[in-house]
């Protein structure tokens, strides 16, 4: 079946289509935030949490 199985090796978070749409579907193309900002939002969704939290 097509259900998601937990993958221990790959700890990248599961990102839904809805979450991705929320980054882009916020207004007409000519009113979107800069590309770099959108990239960091997308990367943030797919990135694993930091290995160490460095608290200074």
């Amino acid at each position, binding site marked *: 079946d*097509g259900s998601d199985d937990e*993958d221990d090796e*790959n700890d990248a978070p599961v990102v839904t289509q809805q979450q991705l*749409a929320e980054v*882009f*579907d916020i207004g*007409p193309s000519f009113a979107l935030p800069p590309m770099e900002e959108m990239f960091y939002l997308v990367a943030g969704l797919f*990135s694993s949490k*930091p290995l160490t939290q*460095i608290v200074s």
Partner: protein
Amino acid sequence: TNSLNLKAQKAAHSKSLIFEPRVAASQSFNTLYNLCHEGFQELCLLDRRFLEFQRNIFNERSQDQDRTQMTEAENEKLNQRLESFLGLVGGRVRLTPGAKAVEWLVRRFRIHEYNTHFLLTTFLPYHTLPIFSTLMSILPSRIPSEYKFLEPYIRSLTPPPRHAIVKAAINAPTFTTSLNSYVIRVSRSQQHYPALLAFWAGVMTEAVGGMMDKSRSGRKGVQHDNEQNVILRMLPTLNAGLGMKHNRDLRIGCYMLLSVMASKGGLDDKILVAMMEAVVLGWEFDTITSGLVCLSMLTQQRGSKRLPRKVTKELTKIEGLPTLLLQLSKQRRVDKLAYGLSLALIERLKKKSNLHALSDIQEIIQDQLLSDVQVSVVVKALLLTAHQIDDNLNQITLRPLLASTLVALTQFSSHTGDVVRSTLGDTDVDIDELEMKLQTTIRQIGVTGQQTEDE
């Protein structure tokens, strides 16, 4: 039949982006030209690249150019000019001058019939605006197959929502390919503008996510084939986009697509390496940080491996790389990138002694960018390199550098220092022999795990 012909001609002439059909039907080409040319002139003031079209499609003589009377070759040449103009005007169709200029192409050259595909793609980033609905209202009854998904919206003359476009990009490979080709073509001609690239990158990022999810249904073998198809469909665009200079948004858009594809687990090692190289080879000052983020996502998928040579070479050109990695590590995991880099730097040491390489490795360990296991492997690799040093000139200069790096590592007071020290006790390398070779003391008295205190 003559009157029927006349009627058909009149109906065709009434198709307009600006005027009501009844008004349009009564306009002469001369009236239209004067009005549209005004818009064109304003465009020329905004961007001098429009000027070249004064010689042809906006020339006064264009008033008498009838496509149906032109040869196939002439039509072909005309199409090239029209598409070149459309690419350039794409960023300005929301402005009155832009709309007026495009109106001339609709009325005189019937681009909505002859260049439907290119025209629709040019207007697609504006799919929510009334001008897009107007365009849909003048399209011929048969539209290009890539745009079949627009049919219900054309029938009801309602603007297609974004998710309908994303859905088409997921399910219709011909549409995906044509949108990709359009963006690459327009970018190559330096006609791109932010809204187009934002639109494309957003739609394609979502679509790639959707395609990868979709390819996962079905049997394992079928899944793999489906995934490969998605990747093959996107690779030419990624290669072209990453190969282009001075187009920051296109480049970052490609990073976005790549990150999604990699994170969905779809890229095998060979493609990952090729893409990692493409990410770093063309990056420029203002795309390095986003490039590093993309690279960190690709390396997380690649597992614990030494970075490819070309990638390492480009990374060593970045000043203050460990600091940059430390900043990035606060938002996301960069350990596999830092680890793969460290291993690659050690490998390079054997060929050329590089002071920076050693201080970078030291900084990476000190900044706690690596896990304990990774620290341990890197330290072991350093010890092994030190052990293998021979008396050729390159390596003689390396010797004191390696010695001081190893000593510094063992002196860290943090948890990392403990890991380094316990690694020393755990290695196959003969430390006594090594200390003699390096003419230094690596094991610090009183802090080495396996040594008794000497008071």
